[in-house]
């Protein structure tokens, strides 16, 4: 049960038996007088002093939280400097400019190719592009306005990376190629299965993270979105945060919502190129080991917000 704070609807009324306004010695109050120290304050005095006490306690907690967050930020600042140096050294050993360029000179116009093997023919590529256009329309007309409305309900956290909410066509097509080739999907099925063609990221302070995530999950549900999947990566070794997949029920459109702290979001950005390089399947075994070690080092430096690791995974049954 929470503290009785000033302004609470359940603040005891003046005629409550615990009130020291009952000074005429009648009732239970008189029976307790011999055992308890007498309350000599008026209701106004009592609540005025309570207000001061609560305010002091809250200030102390806030100071401590701020100090902890400041310490974490300073440590992160130091470790990112080291991580950036490691990444610079990596790039000296494996310069991006020396990587082979994909030869598209013999591909028919309208087809798509990301590397030697992964190709979409003209017809499949056209179907995928058309579906991406439909997704962009749903995002603009309905989904982003709803997310902005949710964002406006709490000034203590915000959407970050909003300009990147639509996934690039090339990355969508890489995923679609895998689904067609490895999972026997049609191009349309493949697009509909990609959970992050539209993606949003909420960023919280460490001290508000866990409660903030729970609140925003409820707000998303309140806007009509259906939670499809939620995965907690706070205990993982390469990536820190929570990712969730949702469905907008009218269109069936999938979207992803990520929940990060400032530091976990920066860690994600810092390691993104390493992840892309690993995903590109062009690195040799040694380079892949270095890339993985780099991602693990950065992730290990990300502080886990209180209670974050306890938010459970969720998967809606088919």
């Amino acid at each position, binding site marked *: 049960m929470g503290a009785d704070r000033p302004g609470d609807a359940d603040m005891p009324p003046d005629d409550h038996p615990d009130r020291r306004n009952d000074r005429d010695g009648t009732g239970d109050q008189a029976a307790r007088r011999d055992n308890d120290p007498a309350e000599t304050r008026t209701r106004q005095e009592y609540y005025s002093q309570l207000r001061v006490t609560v305010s002091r306690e809250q200030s102390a907690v806030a100071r401590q939280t701020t100090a902890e967050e400041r310490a974490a930020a300073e440590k992160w600042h130091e470790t990112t400097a080291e991580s950036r140096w490691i990444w610079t050294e990596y790039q000296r050993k494996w310069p991006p400019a020396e990587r082979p360029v994909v030869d598209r000179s013999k591909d028919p116009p309208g087809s798509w190719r990301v590397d030697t093997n992964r190709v979409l023919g003209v017809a499949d590529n056209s179907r995928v592009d058309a579906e991406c256009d439909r997704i962009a329309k749903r995002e603009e007309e309905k989904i982003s306005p709803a997310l902005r409305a949710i964002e406006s309900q709490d000034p203590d956290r915000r959407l970050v990376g909003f300009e990147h909410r639509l996934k690039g066509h090339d990355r969508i097509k890489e995923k679609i190629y895998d689904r067609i080739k490895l999972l*026997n999907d049609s191009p349309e099925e493949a697009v509909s299965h990609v959970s992050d063609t539209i993606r949003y990221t909420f960023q919280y302070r460490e001290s508000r993270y866990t409660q903030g995530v729970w609140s925003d999950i409820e707000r998303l549900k309140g806007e009509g979105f259906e939670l499809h999947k939620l995965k907690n*990566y706070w205990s993982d070794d390469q990536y820190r945060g929570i990712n969730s997949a949702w469905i907008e029920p009218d269109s069936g459109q999938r979207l992803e919502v990520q929940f990060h702290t400032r530091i976990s979001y920066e860690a994600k950005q810092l390691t993104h190129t390493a992840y892309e390089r690993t*995903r590109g*399947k062009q690195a040799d*075994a*040694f380079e*892949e080991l270095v890339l993985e070690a780099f991602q693990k080092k950065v992730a290990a430096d990300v502080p886990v917000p209180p209670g974050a690791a306890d938010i459970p995974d969720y998967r809606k049954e088919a």
Partner: protein
Amino acid sequence: MADEITYYAIVDDLSSREQPAGVLRRIYLEAGGRRDEAFSQDLVWERTAMLVSAERGDLDNEFIEITEDEANQIVERIRARVTGASST
């Protein structure tokens, strides 16, 4: 020492461990490093980054560790579907 291999059933929204959408193997190379491959509709093992993506927060698929026998059964099921042969 020979390469070590771990097998995974690929499970998406419309599939299950019993009826997975595909199969992936992670090969820990004797020489160091590792290599991920999935059994494709071309009936060959192809390199893939699907599991790497999942480890990095991608939610499209779940990867459930399975035995080599279970992996072989999935391979045969894919082979049967692609070639039109019956799978026993």
